[in-house]
């Protein structure tokens, strides 16, 4: 039953036809699992995620080698919108919400792919408000004015509104108060357990994410250095040391 939901096979990604961001990364996400993507700054995590969700083109990046399969179909040339419709959604790094839309409008915009009935929308939004009560208080503020953490909540909530099967989370913990961070991972956990939603999470807070993840990849200079069961990885300190050193050696990524 451990079928692969997402298979990333030896992809290479280049920005501006000049900057090599990802050299060779292969990732598997089996159905109903939580997979962690770890690595230092500039290692290539976000790029990998954006490549999977096909958003990388919009940043003048291009997939120069390798293949990506989702639900056993090649999605290398599928456009982002279709993927979202098929349940693959990404939460972008750095709180990309729509500044001029109110908090609630932001959430609503998440439902445009498969426009559900008004009641469903209402329901969905209420659910988000349960997760993040703070958003309910700010519902009518323009998102651009909300605080960093609030924006992060909006971004995550908006993604959840699309009724996804696989969520690509890019640094969800960023800028969130510890309490919220825990709550978020709790949410991830429940969604995963109850609705069988799978997650691919790029996260800096290794210890935290490894608590929840089933499987983890360590990325360095755009290459997978190590991979294995989260539990086992979590023990091996030398591995952590190995990739935590990354920020220094990842210089090569650019030259």
């Amino acid at each position, binding site marked *: 039953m451990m079928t692969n939901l997402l298979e990333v096979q030896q992809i290479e990604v280049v920005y501006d036809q000049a900057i090599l961001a990802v050299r060779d990364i292969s990732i598997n996400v089996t159905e109903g699992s939580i997979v962690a993507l770890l690595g230092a700054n500039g290692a290539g995590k976000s790029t990998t995620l954006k490549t999977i*969700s096909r958003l990388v083109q919009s940043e003048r990046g291009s997939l120069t080698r390798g293949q990506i399969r989702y639900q056993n179909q090649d999605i290398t040339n599928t*456009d982002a*919108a279709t993927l979202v419709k098929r349940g693959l*959604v990404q939460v972008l790094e750095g709180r990309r919400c*729509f*500044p*001029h*839309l109110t908090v609630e409008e932001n959430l609503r915009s998440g439902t445009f*792919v498969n426009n559900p009935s008004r009641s469903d929308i209402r329901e969905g939004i209420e659910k988000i408000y349960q997760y993040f009560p703070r958003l309910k208080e700010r519902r009518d503020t323009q998102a651009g004015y909300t605080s960093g953490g609030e924006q992060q909540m909006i971004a995550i909530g908006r993604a959840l509104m699309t009724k996804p099967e696989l969520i690509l989370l890019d640094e969800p913990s960023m800028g969130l108060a510890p309490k919220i961070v825990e709550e978020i991972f709790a949410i991830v956990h429940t969604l995963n357990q109850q609705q069988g939603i799978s997650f691919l999470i790029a996260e800096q807070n290794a210890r935290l994410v490894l608590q929840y993840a089933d499987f983890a990849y360590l990325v360095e200079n755009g290459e997978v250095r190590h991979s294995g069961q989260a539990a086992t990885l979590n023990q091996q300190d030398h591995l952590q040391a190995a990739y935590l050193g990354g920020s220094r050696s990842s210089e090569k990524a650019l030259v």
Partner: protein
Amino acid sequence: MNFFIEVLVGGLLAGIMYSLVAIGFVLIYRASGVFNFAQGALVLFSALTFVSLVERGLPFWQAFAITAIVLFILAVLIERLVLRHLINRSVITLFMATLGLSYIIEGLAQTVWGTQVHGLELGISDEPIEFFGILISKLDLFSAVVAGLMVIVLSLLFSKTRFGLSLRAVADDPLAAQSIGIRLNHIWIIVWTVAGFVALVAGLLWGARLGVQFSLSLIVLKALPVLIIGGFTSISGAIVGGLIVGASEKLAEIYLGGIIGGGLENWFPYALAIIFLLIRPSGLFGEKTVARV
């Protein structure tokens, strides 16, 4: 006094005519945050197409419908060949692209339909009717009504529908919009089609006055200050702006022109717009830019 009122009314009505053109800009600005310079070319293109069809003997409504379809096809082409490849580029790049488009569209229109000047009769005569000693042209009144209708419809489209919301989302952050499955290409096709349709209406009403010819594309310059005063993002702003510009420029021409010299209608509206912006930096009804750190 009577004369003053006459000028005022004349100005207001002229202003409506400007608004008709301005509205087209608002649409595109809403969707991509750029000022679409090709709007003028669209006006020329649609009007020219329409007239030429009529001159080839088609009845009004058929010609109108066919033109609308042509405009849709044009929109699709523009999306496929241009916009699609310019996703989250800087606004100024997009702006330039619309300038490039204006060349193409103008060229296209005149390649297909030639450079002659065409007369256009809508059956609504431009004759004045008397209101308490003030002459008002039927065509002007008609235009006012049309403009009013368009504003109502479009405002509803924007404020009440999902489409309106996704439009603003795309303008705010194309990448994020894509990330939640909004199809930029659909949005753009729709917007450009509607903009084209608005251009057609404006083209017909202006064409009835100027005759259909290249100069139609120059009325953009009249629409610009209207747009700025009203605010790039606001449909109703376009109307209000139009009224303000129309009235003030006429009064200025007559009462100020005598003093500092005539022919100031070209720059006066812009001077006026500066004053408005200094008080309200994003126009009367324009959306304020949300920025915090």
